[in-house]
Every structure is written in C-alpha cells, then in structure tokens.
C-alpha cells in the first residue's frame, strides 16, 4: 500500500525527520587500525565528566541503527573492506566523523606496510577532529558542529550515500 501525501504534509514530515535526526543522532564507533588512544577518549565522552548523551548522542553497536560513523585510526589492509561494509550497512542519510591525526592523514603510521591510508581514501568523511588523540571536549565540539551543519536544510547538507570508491 502506498500513501500519497499532499505537499504540505510531506514538508511537515521532512521537518519532523530533521528535528529527530538532530536531536538524537545515534553513533557507531569503528576502529580501523587505531592505537586505542582515540577510542578511550571517545568512550570518555560518554562517561559522566563529559556526557555526550546530553546532546542526545548515543553510542551503540549495530551499523543498521546508526546515523553517525565515528572512525578512528589509519585504515589497515585487513580493516578496509570491513570499514566499507559497515558504512554500506548504515541507512541513509549517514555521516562520517574522522577522529584523530591517523584518521585524517595516516599520522605516525604513514609508510607502514599494513596501512592503506586515511579514512577519506576509503569512505567520504563529513567532519574531521584533529589531535593525537583529540581531547573529549574536541570530540564533542566536532559532533555538535556536525549537528549544526545538518540544520542548514536538506539542499545544503552533504548527506552520505555517495558511491564508495
């Protein structure tokens, strides 16, 4: 059964969807070869001192429930295909945040034989958070900025779902 809505209804529905997305984005964390430094800082952001959940962000396990993919570390040969698969399993629209120097440029691991490169050589990235590792405040700032850019409206926001290289 298909329901055809009037234009105004459609608009209202889009607004509700955007409102819900901004107020409670769910995030999934994938470590594609990180040293653990960024990972423990991401975990620290959900614990009482920093408490990312007050922005409605929830870390959870399945890519199929996630809006934001938080990536750490350079991409290793072993993790490349897994990273792509996790990205493809996420429903649209999806956003990717690269956390840490390694995720942005390969960092200290440039030139290691097991490292393919950085995150945006494998999947498109929407926000970069630099640091080795970034402080929890920086991670929160990055996620909040990403949420702010979503408010600009559907035309301007660069949603995911681009073809994977």
């Amino acid at each position, binding site marked *: 059964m298909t329901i055809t809505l009037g234009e105004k209804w459609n608009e209202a529905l889009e607004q509700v969807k955007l409102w819900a997305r901004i107020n409670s984005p769910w995030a999934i*964390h*994938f*470590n*594609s*070869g*990180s*040293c*653990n*430094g*960024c*990972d*423990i*800082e*991401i*975990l*620290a952001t959900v*614990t*009482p*001192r920093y408490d990312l959940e007050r922005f409605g962000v929830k870390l*959870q*396990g*399945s*890519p199929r429930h996630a809006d934001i993919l938080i990536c750490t*570390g*350079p991409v*290793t*040969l*072993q*993790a490349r295909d*897994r990273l792509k698969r*996790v990205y493809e399993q996420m429903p649209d629209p999806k956003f990717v945040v690269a956390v840490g120097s390694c995720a942005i440029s390969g*960092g*200290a*691991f440039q*030139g*290691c*034989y*097991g*490292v393919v490169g950085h995150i945006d050589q494998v999947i498109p990235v929407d926000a970069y958070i630099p640091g*080795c*590792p970034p*402080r929890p405040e920086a991670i929160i700032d990055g996620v909040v900025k990403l949420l702010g850019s979503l408010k600009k409206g559907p035309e301007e926001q660069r949603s995911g779902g681009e073809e994977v290289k």
Partner: protein
Amino acid sequence: MENEKREKFIVPIGPQHPALKEPGHFEFTVDGETVTGATVRLGYVHRGIEKATEDRNWTQNLYLLERICGICSHSHAMAYSLGVEKLAGVTVPPRAQAIRQVVAEMERIHSHLLWLGVAAHEAGFDTLFMFSWRDRETIMDILEGLTGNRVNYSVNVLGGVKVDIDAERADSIRKGLDLLEERTRHYLKVVTTDETFLRRTRGVGFTTTEQAEALGLVGPTARAANVARDVRVDVPYVAYAEFPVTMTLDTGGDLEARFVVRIKELFESYRVIRLILDKLPAGDLTMRMPRRIKEGETVSRIEAPRGELFYFIKSGGGEKPERIKVRTPSINNFALVTGTAVGHQLADMPMILAGMDPCFSCNDR
C-alpha cells in the same frame, strides 16, 4: 548416527562488535547455550610498526613505538628507552628513573580503572562503569597536569625524561591519590560483596595454577591464579629496586580473583607513588645520548599494566635500528579465552574475554 549428522553451530562475533572497542574476530562453537569450542582471529589492527621502525631513526622510533598502544603508551616507550640506553651504555640519572616509575604506576592506575569499567560494562553493571570512569578522570587530570597530554604522554626521551615533579605538583598528585584510594576501597567492596555481580564472576573462567603456567599467562591474569610472575619484583628495572612493590597474588583463579588482584594492585601503586614523591632523588633529568648506537643486541623486559612486555632491539651501529621485536602480554593471555571457554555459557564469553584485559592494538601492532 544421529549425532554424526548433527552440524556444528558456529556463532561468529566481530570484527566490528559492540562488546569491545577494538576489532577482533571470535568464533564460538555452541551446543544450545553451552560453548564447545572457541577460536580467535587477530590481525585487524596490524599496521606493520616493527618494520617501520627500521626506516626511522632512534629518536623518531620513540614516538612511533609509543603509539603501538594508547593505553600503555608509557610502557612501550619506557621498554624501548631502557633497551637503547643499555645498548649505548648510558646510565640514566636516578631522578629520571624515579619519575619514569611514577608515570608507569600512574598508567597502571588509569589502565586498571579503565578495565574495571569496561569489564563491569560487559557484565551489564553500567553503574560501576560510569563510576570508575568518572574517578579515572582524576588520574587523567594528574597525568595531564604532569605531562601535558591525556593519553600519549611522551614522558621519555632517550637518556632520561622530559618532565619534572616539583613540590607543588607532588601535593596535587597526593590529593588526587587520596580521593582515588577512598574510591578504590569502595570498588573492592563492590566486587567482593555485590551478590548479582558475583554470580557473573565467581567460578567463571577458572584456571588452576598449573593450567595458568601451562597456558603461559602473564600479568594480573596469571597472578589471579597464584602464579608468582611480576617483572617489577623478579627483575627490578628503573627505580623498582629502591622503591619496591609487593606482588599481589590471589588463589581464586576465576574472574572474581582477577577483579580483586587488579584492584589490590591499585593500592600498591598509590603506596609506591607516595613513597617516591616523598623521597624523590635529586639530580639531572637527562643524560646525553649518542646519535648512533653501538652495534649489538639486547632485550628489555618491563611489567606493563597487562603483564610482561618484551622488547628485542638490534643495532647495526647506525642511526636506525636493524630490528625491533615487540612481544606484548595480550598474545599470551588470549590462550586463556580459548583454553577456558569450553563448558561455559555463551553469555559468559564477553566476561571471560574482558577478564584478561585484551589489547588488540598492542597485540597486532
């Protein structure tokens, strides 16, 4: 005949899984809810750091090796520095050695509190997870104040340390430790008396002392099965000869014992840090190191938070090392998961795995 036809049912977990923050793949063969076999597949975080050290000079390697693991970064840098200093024949000043030990013990505190939270989270005890991570911020603040960074402290340089502890800093460290000690006493009470929690830990993942020795376990995991194995006591390095620690042993051999041993080690760390702060030797922080290291090879062993960390370093007399081999504690302890999984419920698997405090990025390098 019926039995032969029965197929094995395999539960694959990973590499991306909600239980741990790092990628690792596990396959559990199950009969109903009971596990009948377990295999581990590692290597998702293999970056090839050992080979990469051969392209970088001795000083650059310090920063690369520190990034083998973000949780025990100081241990890696310290093991490497101790090895290179031994090769070069340089004696590090006692004040630098003592500061290295202070930071190593602080790292143990942060690592054990982190583990306590993660292991409690696996048991579904999220309140303890949140509490222990809240208190862990105290030690993170101390580390940040002392070294300038929360995670990769980069305290070591070849021939000494970069940071100094003055009286004011020592006072703020003491204050933080007082708070932590009080909280740790509470955690010890929780993990030994909370009835619900004990049902998840008591008797789970049990190993006898003989089994633990045969599996080659190291670190707190081995000490929880009454295996007296601690590099800090057996072969004291840095300042552990002047400021000794006592080995924490437990005869339990199960998950509860692993909780108790790690928490009791925290008290030992608080004590030894206070002792060093009171009697910090005076003197220089660094010694001059040659740019080229004399030809030769050496091993250096230290006790990382997870167990014995082993470095083999070979120099050809040049500006770069010829070979560096790292053996981390996690590779030994993985035998515990495959060795004790059989016969347990599937739901106990995350607990047994978390109980050995796995570190995939150390292990895969």
